[in-house]
């Protein structure tokens, strides 16, 4: 344990961040290539989650005051993400019960995404320059990109959900996921075009994080409804949201994929 902590401390003071990125990428590779529902796949799924929370906690405690505020927000969001994922996956498996859709897990995910958005706003405000013209150009660019994203989301996610005929509650919760996708995308686009983040490694990592997060968000309506007795009616979202990025339930039948 002390060896690991020492390695983390060295990586944080030097440019050896790839020492953390490499095993994470190995975990992603193991998850993709391992047998479905195997112990290897499930363990590799939680490795990046636990590493992210642990390393953020170390970084937050050791950071200077100016960067501690945003770090605390990111740590809170990542911790919430970890806890929510445990509630979504481990608890139903242990209790052998199926989560309905919508459920409390969806509310927890929305709280996490809202915290992510607050974190991005905090970063954006700290990096906002004093040049009004630059800010206006960045805002225009981000609006253009967000508008294009909204077109995609409307056609691929919102429209199919509206036509699905599910209950009002299910449809509303299902549509909140693409709403958060659009919100995070707009904030990330504003950061990308206006703060010079693309020109630095931590900035690029931040954008990779947001990009990977929002690319998976449309699939999250299916998260809470995956289970042995899940039906299409309880999981209205479809289209590209059929893709999964997480371990499957052990006893999920073929017809319950959403």
């Amino acid at each position: 344990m002390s060896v690991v902590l020492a390695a983390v401390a060295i990586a944080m003071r030097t440019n050896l961040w790839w020492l953390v990125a490499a095993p994470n990428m190995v975990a992603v590779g193991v998850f993709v290539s391992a047998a479905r529902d195997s112990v290897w796949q499930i363990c590799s799924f939680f490795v990046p989650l636990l590493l992210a929370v642990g390393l953020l906690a170390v970084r937050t405690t050791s950071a200077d005051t100016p960067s501690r505020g945003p770090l605390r927000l990111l740590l809170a969001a990542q911790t919430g993400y970890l806890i929510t994922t445990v509630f979504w996956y481990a608890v139903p498996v242990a209790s052998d019960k199926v989560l309905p859709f919508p459920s409390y897990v969806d509310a927890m995910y929305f709280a996490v995404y809202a915290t992510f958005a607050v974190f991005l706003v905090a970063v954006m405000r700290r990096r906002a320059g004093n040049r009004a013209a630059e800010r206006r150009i960045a805002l225009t660019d981000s609006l253009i990109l967000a508008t294009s994203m909204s077109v995609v989301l409307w056609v691929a996610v919102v429209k199919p959900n509206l036509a699905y005929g599910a209950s009002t509650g299910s449809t509303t919760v299902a549509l909140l996921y693409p709403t958060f996708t659009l919100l995070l995308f707009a904030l990330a686009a504003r950061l990308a075009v206006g703060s010079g983040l693309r020109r630095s490694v931590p900035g690029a990592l931040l954008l990779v994080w947001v990009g990977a997060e929002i690319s998976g968000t449309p699939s999250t309506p299916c998260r809470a409804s995956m289970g042995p007795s899940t039906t299409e009616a309880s999981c209205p979202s479809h289209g590209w949201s059929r893709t999964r990025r997480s371990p499957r339930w052990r006893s999920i039948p073929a017809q319950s994929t959403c």
Partner: protein
Amino acid sequence: MVSNAAVASLAVHPGTVHLLAGSRLPRKASTAGDPGRSSDRVLGRTARLVLLLAAALLTDLTAYADDDRSMFLLVASTLTVILVI
């Protein structure tokens, strides 16, 4: 998983504290005040706008297709080009 991997790497990168504190990041040479590079930026924005219109057109054209996957790939690739520019 990739998003969590990126956060873990972000947590250990020494430049993260500068990024979150709002201080200046090490960056490439600035193009401010260079008329040639400024016109390049204007051209880049124009190209981005044209690609946006192309993406909207593609989305509109493929909205009637039954194959969601091909539609998504088309639009996603166009958006990627926009972001790269």
